[in-house]
C-alpha cells in the first residue's frame, strides 16, 4: 500500500487511539439541554422560539442569519425553559436555548426507518445544497464552517476533487474512525451527494495509516461507488488540516490567502458527509453527533452518539466519572482542543471529543531561553518561522509580523510541541495573527 503525505513540516505525537475498537453507543438523553445559537463560523443564528414553547426533536429553533450562518434545531422534545447567555468551550458566553426534556418525540417529517436510501438520481445540485442549508449542517471535524457555503461554488470556479477528511489526526479522537466502520454506506452516499452538489466526478477519502481496518472496509465499499477512491495517508500531524490534506492527495498547495476551491478542491469531514446523507435522504437535521470521551486514566472510555446541548458532565459520568488524578479537561483533541472550566458546558456541533488529562500531563513546563535549535521551523507545516513570529509578536512589531506571513499560521501547535524550552510560541503568534488581521480589516474599510 502506498501512503501519501504532505511535504513541509509536521510532528509525530503518540496517537493514543484508546477507543478505536469501541462501537458507538447512544448516550441517554439528559434532563435538560442547552443549545447555543452560535455553534458555527459566521453570524450566530437568530432564535425563533420563546420561553414556554413546546418543541419536538428536529424542530427549527434558530434561523441562519445571513449567508455565512447556519440553522439550529432542537435535539430533544420538551418545553423551552430559558433563553439566555451560557458559557461554551471557548470560555465566552453565547445566547442559548435551554430546554426541559419531555419524552423523545421527533418531528414527523424525519424518516426514522433504518434502511439505507441509495437513489440520488432525481436530486438536483440545488436541491442538495438547499437541504444541507435547511438541516443546519456545519463542518463536524471541529471547524464548524457552514457546509452550504462550501457547497455553493461561485460560477467562475470549478471543483475537480471532492475530498472526504477521514484523517482524524488529533491523538485520542476516534469518532470519525467508528463512523467509517459503522456508517460506511451512508458515508459513501453522502460523498456522492457532495459530488453531485458541486458537479464533480472524482472523490477521494483520505484515511491515516493507523486506521487500516477503515481503509480496507471503505476500499471494498468504494468498488460499488464509481468515482470514489480511498487514499491511505502517512501518520503525521496535522494531516487532517484541510490544506495539507489537499496537498497530500492532489499535490496542489492552496496559496496564501486563497481557498481550497481555488485549487479545485472541496473538503468535507467524514461525519459531515454522513450528516449530509441523513439530511438529504432522511430529512434529518443536524441535532446529534459522535463524541469520543477518553483519557489515560478514564475507566471506560468510548464513543457516544450524543444529542447537541447535552452537558459534558453526562458524558463524563457515562465513562466512570472524573478520574482521581484529573488535571485538565479538553473539548477536542490535545493539539488544538480547548481546556474547559466546568462540566456544565454543552456539547455543540463541533465537539469531536472530551479528553481528560491527568495532573502529570496538564501543566506547562518551565519556560527556558530560546536555544535557536530551529525545531519549530522544521516542524511548521506552513513553512513559517515560529521563533521569529513569536519574537515580533512579543515586541508588537505588527509590520514585520505581516511581512513574515503570520496570517498563514493555522494554529496547529506543531511549533510548541517541538520546542525543547517550553516556550509559549503559539500564544504570542495567535496574538500577533489576530492583531494583524484586525489591522488588515481596518485597512479595507
Amino acid at each position: 500500500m502506498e501512503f501519501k503525505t504532505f511535504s513541509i513540516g509536521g510532528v509525530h505525537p503518540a496517537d493514543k487511539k484508546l477507543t478505536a475498537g469501541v462501537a458507538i453507543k447512544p448516550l441517554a438523553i439528559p434532563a435538560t439541554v442547552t443549545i447555543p445559537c452560535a455553534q458555527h463560523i459566521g453570524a450566530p443564528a437568530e432564535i425563533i422560539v420563546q420561553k414556554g414553547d413546546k418543541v419536538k426533536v428536529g424542530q427549527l429553533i434558530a434561523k441562519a442569519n445571513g449567508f455565512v450562518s447556519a440553522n439550529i434545531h432542537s435535539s430533544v422534545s420538551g418545553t423551552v425553559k430559558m433563553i439566555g447567555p451560557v458559557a461554551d468551550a471557548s470560555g465566552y458566553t453565547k445566547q442559548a436555548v435551554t430546554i426541559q426534556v419531555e419524552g423523545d418525540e421527533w418531528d414527523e417529517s424525519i424518516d426514522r426507518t433504518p434502511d439505507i436510501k441509495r437513489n440520488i438520481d432525481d436530486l438536483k445540485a440545488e436541491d442538495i445544497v438547499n437541504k444541507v442549508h435547511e438541516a443546519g449542517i456545519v463542518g463536524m471535524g471541529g471547524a464548524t464552517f457552514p457546509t452550504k457555503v462550501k457547497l455553493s461554488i461561485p460560477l467562475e470556479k470549478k471543483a475537480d476533487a471532492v475530498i472526504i477528511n477521514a484523517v482524524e489526526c488529533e491523538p485520542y479522537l476516534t469518532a470519525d474512525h467508528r463512523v467509517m466502520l459503522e456508517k460506511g454506506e451512508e458515508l459513501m452516499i453522502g460523498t456522492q451527494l457532495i459530488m453531485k452538489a458541486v458537479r464533480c466526478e472524482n472523490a477521494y477519502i483520505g484515511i491515516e495509516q493507523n486506521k487500516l481496518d477503515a481503509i480496507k472496509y471503505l476500499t471494498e465499499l468504494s468498488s460499488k461507488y464509481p468515482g470514489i477512491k480511498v487514499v491511505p495517508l502517512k501518520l503525521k500531524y496535522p494531516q487532517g488540516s484541510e490544506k495539507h490534506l489537499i496537498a497530500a492527495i492532489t499535490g496542489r498547495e492552496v496559496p496564501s490567502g486563497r481557498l481550497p476551491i481555488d485549487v479545485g478542491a472541496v473538503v468535507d469531514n467524514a461525519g459531515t458527509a454522513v450528516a449530509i446523507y441523513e439530511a438529504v435522504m432522511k430529512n434529518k437535521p443536524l441535532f446529534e453527533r459522535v463524541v469520543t470521551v477518553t483519557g489515560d486514566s478514564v475507566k471506560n472510555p468510548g464513543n457516544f452518539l450524543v444529542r447537541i446541548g447535552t452537558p459534558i458532565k453526562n458524558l463524563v459520568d457515562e465513562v466512570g466519572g472524573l478520574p482521581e488524578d484529573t488535571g485538565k479537561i479538553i473539548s477536542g483533541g490535545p493539539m488544538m482542543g480547548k481546556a474547559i472550566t466546568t462540566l456544565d458546558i454543552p456539547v455543540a456541533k463541533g465537539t469531536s471529543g472530551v479528553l481528560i488529562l491527568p495532573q502529570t500531563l496538564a501543566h506547562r513546563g518551565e519556560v527556558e531561553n530560546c536555544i535557536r535549535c530551529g525545531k519549530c521551523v522544521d516542524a511548521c507545516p506552513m513553512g513559517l518561522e515560529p521563533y521569529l513570529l513569536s519574537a515580533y509578536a512579543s515586541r508588537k512589531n505588527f509590520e514585520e509580523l505581516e511581512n513574515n506571513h503570520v496570517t498563514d499560521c493555522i494554529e496547529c501547535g506543531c511549533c510548541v510541541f517541538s520546542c525543547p524550552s517550553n516556550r509559549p510560541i503559539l500564544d504570542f503568534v495567535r496574538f500577533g495573527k489576530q492583531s494583524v488581521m484586525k489591522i488588515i480589516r481596518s485597512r479595507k474599510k
Partner: protein
Amino acid sequence: MSNLLTISPSPHAKGKDTVKSLMGGVLIALAPAFLVSLYFFGIGALITTLVSVISCVLFEWLITKFILKQTPHICDLSAVLTGVLLAFNLPSNISPFIVMFGALIAIGVGKMSFGGLGQNPFNPALVGRVFLLISFPVQMTGAWPKPIEARWQYLDAVTGATPMSYSELGKVNLMDMFLGGVGGSLGEVAALALILGGVYLIVKRIITWHIPVSILLTVLIITSIAYLTDPTKFASPLYHLLGGGLLLGAIFMATDYVTSPMSSTGKLIYGFGIGLLTVIIRLWGSYPEGMSFAILIMNALTPIINKYVKPTRFGVVKTK
C-alpha cells in the same frame, strides 16, 4: 474532586525534547571520542577534560548568580557541553591554569556577556580556544603529546608533530588518522569515533545532516580539485577530511544551535562557507588548521543568513 483544573491555551501535548535531553544527547555522541582520547592520551585527557568542564560549570554558576543576579541553570548541561568541547580542542599536556582561563573566556565572554544561553553570536568553546591560541601560541601548538607513549604522563608528556603541521603534511598514515593514534588535540584524533557520534546525533534528530554534509562535501570538492591539479603541492582530499579537527568541527562545533542558521537552506549555505574558508586558510593561509576561524566567521554571518534565507513556505510553489 480535590484537584484544580488547569486552563491554558492549546496545544496540550509536548514532544520529548528538552534542553537537557538535547545537550545530554550531544554528550553521549561525544563519548566514543572521549574514550578514544583516554586510550591514547591517558591522564592528560582525563584531567584536561575534568578541569575544563568543572571550570565552565563553576564560572557559569558564579556569573549567573552574582553578576547577573539570576537563578543559575547549570542543570541544562549547556556549560558541561562547552567544557567538553573546549577540552577537545586542546592538547592533553596543557597547563590546567590555561584551561581554566580558557573556560573563563569561553563562558564569561563567549556566552554570559551576551545574556546567557541562546543569546551569544559566537560558539563559546571556539571563542575560548581561539583566545588561548592567540594568547598562548606555544603551549597551544608547539608540543603535541605522542599518543599511547604519553598516556601516563601529563605536563611533561613526550611530544611529537601533528599531521597538520607543515613538516608532516601528507606524510601520516590515513588509517591512523581514521582510528586515532596521531598527534593532535584531545577530540580531533579519532575520525571513526567522531563519525559514530555524528551518526548518533542525526539518527536521534539532535542535528540534521545539512551542516556536516555541506562542510565535508565542500572541503572534499575543493581539495580534490587542488590535489588533481598538483598532487605534489597539495595533500589528498581524504587527508584533509580526516585531519585537523575538521570532523570535530563539522559535526560538533559548527552544528551548535545558537550560532548556526535556522532554515535548512541557510544551514547549507553556512556549511559551504565554513568549508570554503577552511580550505582557503589551510591551502593559502598561515594556519594548517583554520577551521576554528572559518566557523567563527560564519557564526558572524548567521544573522544575515537568517534574515535573507527563509524556509520554503506552503503554497508558494506549485508542486506536481
